[in-house]
């Protein structure tokens, strides 16, 4: 199961689960469970690396070992809790913007994003562990871990935005009014929810130009041609207007998803503050959670200030 999970993560990182040509058809070739399992394992491995600082500075005391256990457990909880808290809003935004992903498909997408974030984070783990061994500065370790999480978050959210962008570009085309005889192509995009099959349907109607070119019998060929040309022009103008409206819709959808990304980042940062400590201050006794005071951003600014102030 672990190998399958790692293989799934590899597929996601390579982009094979989110191929643009398939996303446009509403297909999302991923399964959530192995990705979630892999995410938990990757988060635990980074949690171990984070707590090496406490282990080394605590000289192997019992508090230090408990801190290691706590960080190993809390880091997957941090990410899962952040996803659970932000998933409903993503679903609502998704429906509002017409991207038409089912809750199941959205869960798969979030699981993929989580796998990307945690794969990047876990790859920084050995570097964090090395600095934990060779550094005595607790503020430096805070800044280092926040930076690593920040880089991983940016890459994971970029992956999500890119995938959502492809899905949004598969928004439904509204049908043309029946009176318009011009040739149109209608694409219907369905999303993959496991049992549904994604498909692409095309319908073409007769060409107005073809009809207009039928020879006139009453000696008024110029007037018939003029009417046909005007019909074609009107149809073309309406198509352009609809295309412009749809492009505006897509831009709005992308903006809304960017706003959601900011919300996700803020929730994740504050969730990490609620669940602290992860690193373990060498001068303080172990505790599973600290008092709820201040906030994540003030804490990071304080750590930066301590670093620069010496």
């Amino acid at each position: 199961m672990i190998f399958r999970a790692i293989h799934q993560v590899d597929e996601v990182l390579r982009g094979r689960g989110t191929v643009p040509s398939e996303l446009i058809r509403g297909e999302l070739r991923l399964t959530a469970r192995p990705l979630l399992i892999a995410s938990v394992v990757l988060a635990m491995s980074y949690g171990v690396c984070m707590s090496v600082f406490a282990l080394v500075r605590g000289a192997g005391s019992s508090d230090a070992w408990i801190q290691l256990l706590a960080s190993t457990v809390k880091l997957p909880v941090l990410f899962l809790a952040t996803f659970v808290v932000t998933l409903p809003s993503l679903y609502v935004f998704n429906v509002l913007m017409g991207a038409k992903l089912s809750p199941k498909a959205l869960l798969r997408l979030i699981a993929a994003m989580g796998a990307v974030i945690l794969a990047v984070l876990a790859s920084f783990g050995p570097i964090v562990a090395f600095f934990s061994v060779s550094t005595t500065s607790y503020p430096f370790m805070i800044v280092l871990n926040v930076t690593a999480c920040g880089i991983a978050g940016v890459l994971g959210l970029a992956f999500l935005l890119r995938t959502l962008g492809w899905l949004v570009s598969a928004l439904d085309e509204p049908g043309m009014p029946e009176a318009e005889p011009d040739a149109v192509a209608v694409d219907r995009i369905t999303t993959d929810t496991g049992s549904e099959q994604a498909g692409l349907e095309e319908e073409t109607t007769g060409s107005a130009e073809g009809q207009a070119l039928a020879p006139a019998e009453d000696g008024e060929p110029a007037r018939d041609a003029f009417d046909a040309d005007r019909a074609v022009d009107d149809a073309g103008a309406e198509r352009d207007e609809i295309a412009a409206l749809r492009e505006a819709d897509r831009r709005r959808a992308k903006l809304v998803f960017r706003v959601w990304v900011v919300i996700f980042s803020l929730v994740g940062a504050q969730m990490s503050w609620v669940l602290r400590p992860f690193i373990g201050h060498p001068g303080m006794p172990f505790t599973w959670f600290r008092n709820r005071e201040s906030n994540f951003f003030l804490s990071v600014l304080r750590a930066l200030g301590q670093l620069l102030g010496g």
Partner: protein
Amino acid sequence: MTAVIHNLLRDRPQRILLADTSLTRGSELISLVAVIAVFGFTYGIVMGAFGGLGPDRWLQITYSGLKTPLLLLATFALSVPPFFVLYTLIGLRDDFGEAVRALLATQAGLTIVLASLGPMMAVTYLSNRDYDTAVSANFVCFGAASLSAQYLLRRFYRPLIDRDRRHRPMLWAWLAIYGFVGIQMGWSLRPFIGAPGMSTRFLREDDWGNAYQALLNKLTGTLGL
């Protein structure tokens, strides 16, 4: 060995070590690591010989010989995992092996240049017994070797960049990660030269601190903040 040096330092980007294709990719990597170990050790023992060649200095000389290739290879090993993930994310996974060979070959070239500067370092030690001068001279040697390595790196990486321009930002990412880790690694593995008045130790664990913290403290002290 001279064939290895020629092929590394001359213009053979496609087949880094030897002109013939008898080496497998795996043995090519092992050969590059061996070059780094041998030439890095060579420069390291010269670096550690500042205090002389007496029996009381053999331990420092040996430590310095071991730590120079350790500095390069350990930094490389720590930097590869995030580099691998970034390469996969950006869609260049299939070129990763070639990129790693190019980077290892650059390190091998750097150690060859360093080793070639060893005799000049020995003359510097013979002509000047000041520890700070020895430290500065070693900085200059490493600086010169690094500049040469940049030239080699561009040459080894050019076929990749010509194939796909996305390799260029990846190269910058590598330099950022490697530089960030390497500075701390160099700080943690000291002493390399060994001040004659101090006892010989492999590491100064009680004085580890943090290279960036030390640099910031020095900067803020200089600026009077």
